[in-house]
């Protein structure tokens, strides 16, 4: 039982990163009704920049600077590129996202090479013990920061005028425009914020999965899984979805062979670990097939 709780907690730690990425995706979806498939690669690029910065400045300063750079990058993308495809067919937006994916992936690989880099960790050392559960220091730090980011964003969006303006722009751009909200600026900030979130996620996860150009690739995919599961219209859904995906992944990786034995299924599984990613992706497909709006999302109504 203790082992089970341990695995659940570990899953929640990884899940919090998926939640942060999902939050970024949901933010962009809410404001521009499109997905940025290049989100992960932009985050990787910013993480590489942070790595380069941290060779010269301390961790905290490098972290903050990278967040700012990520913000500027995202805002620039929106203003320069996305503005041009917003009102066109949705397929165009997907393709522009893929174009950004290729550009940033290739830039990262070109400048820093395909070999893994070590990203500095602020908390090193032996794992600590809380209530009988062993948690790595960095994992705990990661979880706490992710929750802090979520709380901060919640406070920002619910209790500040700027957050209100951004929510208004996402909900009904025309009406917001009429109420005097500078919607163009709000969209830029939305994208900037999402990119900053992605950068934070990248920097938090880099010490664990080692910094390579393809680092965020699977994490982005699981971020999609979390966003879809939680509901693309809902920010708390994104976090919850992330936690669920992380927990499911971990539990599958450890217990799937036992589950198969328990139900006496006609086949045998020797190594559950292989099924971690498959299960997470299966979750995306299942959610999309059964209940595309996710847990908290609003049903998609198409006007004819």
């Amino acid at each position, binding site marked *: 039982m203790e082992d089970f709780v341990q695995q659940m907690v570990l899953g929640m730690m990884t899940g919090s990163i998926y939640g942060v990425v999902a939050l970024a995706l949901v933010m962009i*979806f809410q404001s521009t009704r*499109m*997905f940025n*498939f290049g989100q992960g690669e932009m985050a990787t690029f910013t993480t590489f920049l942070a790595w380069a910065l941290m060779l010269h400045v301390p961790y905290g300063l490098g972290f903050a600077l990278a967040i700012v750079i990520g913000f500027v990058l995202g805002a620039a993308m929106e203003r320069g*590129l996305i503005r*041009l*495809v917003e009102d066109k067919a*949705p*397929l*165009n*937006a*997907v*393709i*522009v996202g*893929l*174009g*950004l*994916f*290729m*550009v*940033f*992936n*290739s*830039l990262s*690989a*070109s*400048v820093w*090479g*395909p070999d893994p880099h070590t990203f500095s960790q602020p908390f090193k050392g032996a794992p600590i013990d809380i209530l009988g559960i062993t948690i790595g220091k960095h994992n705990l730090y990661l979880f706490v920061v992710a929750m802090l980011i979520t709380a901060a964003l919640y406070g920002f969006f619910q209790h500040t005028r700027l957050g209100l303006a951004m929510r208004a722009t996402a909900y009904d751009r025309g009406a917001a425009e009429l109420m005097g909200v500078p919607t163009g600026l709000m969209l830029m900030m939305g994208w900037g914020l999402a990119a900053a979130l992605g950068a934070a996620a990248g920097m938090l996860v880099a010490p664990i999965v080692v910094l390579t150009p393809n680092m965020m690739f*699977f994490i982005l*995919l699981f971020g*999609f*899984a979390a966003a*879809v599961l939680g509901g693309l219209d809902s920010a708390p859904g994104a976090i919850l979805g992330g936690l669920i995906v992380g927990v499911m992944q971990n539990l599958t990786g450890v217990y799937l062979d036992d589950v198969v034995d328990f139900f006496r299924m006609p*086949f*045998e*599984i*020797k*190594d559950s670990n*292989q*099924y971690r*990613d*498959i299960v997470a*992706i*299966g979750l*995306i*497909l299942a959610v*999309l*097939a059964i209940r*595309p709006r996710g847990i908290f999302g609003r049903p998609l109504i*198409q006007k*004819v």
Partner: protein
Amino acid sequence: MSRRQASIAAPQPWELAAAFGAGYFFWFLADGTVGLVAGAGGVAAAIVLNRAAELLLPARPHAGRIVWGLLILAFAVAAPFISAGDFRTAQMATAGYVAIAVLGLNLLTGYTGQGSIGHSAFIGVGAYGAAIMVDQWDAPMALALLTGTAAAATAGLLIGVPALRLSGPYLAIATLGLAVAFTPIVKLNELADLTGGRSGLNLFDHRFGPPVDWDWLSDARWYYYVTLGSLIAGLILLHNLLNSGVGRSFRAVRDNEIAAGAAGVNVPLTKLTAFAVSSGYAGFAGGLLFMISNRFISPESFTVIMAIEYLVVMVIGGTASLPGSLFGAFFLVYAYREGIETVSSETESGSDTWLLAAGLLAGVGIMFTSQWPAMLTKRIAGVLGGSQYRWAVGNLLRLVLAIVIALLFVWLFRRATEDLLDLVSLRGAITGAVLIVVVLFVPGGVASLFDRILALKWMTVGDWLQSAIALKPAAAVSEMPGESAGSAAP
């Protein structure tokens, strides 16, 4: 010869470009002057025949097109004999199966509007299907290919059912998940007996030799002809399909699903057909991939990067366009994979020709098609040379500035690639940038430019040149015919 006859006889701009292009391509293929002569000479012969057809058969306006079609076919059939060796022949065969895969993707995404980033999974199913048939039951080539195709088409149907209710970005996510899931599923230890698990299937020793034992028909050439034949058959099939009622229902679903349903189109059946046929094409291409890449495939051969690459070149070549898909395939094999490596290795070994050419192109492009250099240099030239020499001095200034830009570009590039950047890895960035430019400014892809290029006349080219070197004010410049997106404001 009358003036009209002379104007018919003279080669059009695009024909000259085609001669140049064919000459270069075949020079590259043959690695020698034989190719150059063959390419340029063939196009010249086609131009002559085209004119002959126009003059002798005025009642048949399509005769010219038939001539060009026959020329392309002749080139395709003769290519293995002009090529420098088995590697180049295999490369052309690769372009062939990539074209088949991109045609399938175009059917699904371009003509039916179902944006899919999962094509690599279907290609993988086809490849593994063919490979398993060979591995387990020693199947002959045709049977293996057919099994791969059938397996992929079935997979497409299975995916198509849940995909019926998905659209746009949701479908993209679902297919992305599919493409990513393919690799770990194939790697599963539980399936390793069948799929070879992590290390893939290596059936290199298994030859699919040609049915007749002719001296000149090496294995590579045999694969090439199989691929060529399949590509032609696939093109004809797709062309007929798209011009039939089924094809119209594809387009109807793409343009407005709800309206199509209201008009009586069976939308689910149409979508499922699109998925099945598209995956079938992908599976066939996968089987060919298995054969041509030394009968070795592994789970890592079919990643989502492949799916993205195919989607990207499809868009660059032209969504919803059959010749566009062919162009896209050529772009992938010859520009994306081969071209950048050639440029990179030549640049690294010290040759600045490519860089200088690119820089000059950029410099001339900026200086002579934008309005601000014209206005700026007009002012300066007015100050320097007085009003009668303004034109000459202005153009000289622009030329000098263009050369400066070119040299700056070369210098910057050299500095950057020395310590910072690696050109070969940048090919993704370059292709991504090309893709974004295409999506924003040339929505139909390169194929949409074909019509404009074919209609280009010398007079238009002359007019455009004249407007470029004239230091006219902005309003007159933008009225010039044949102007492209260079001066379009967003």
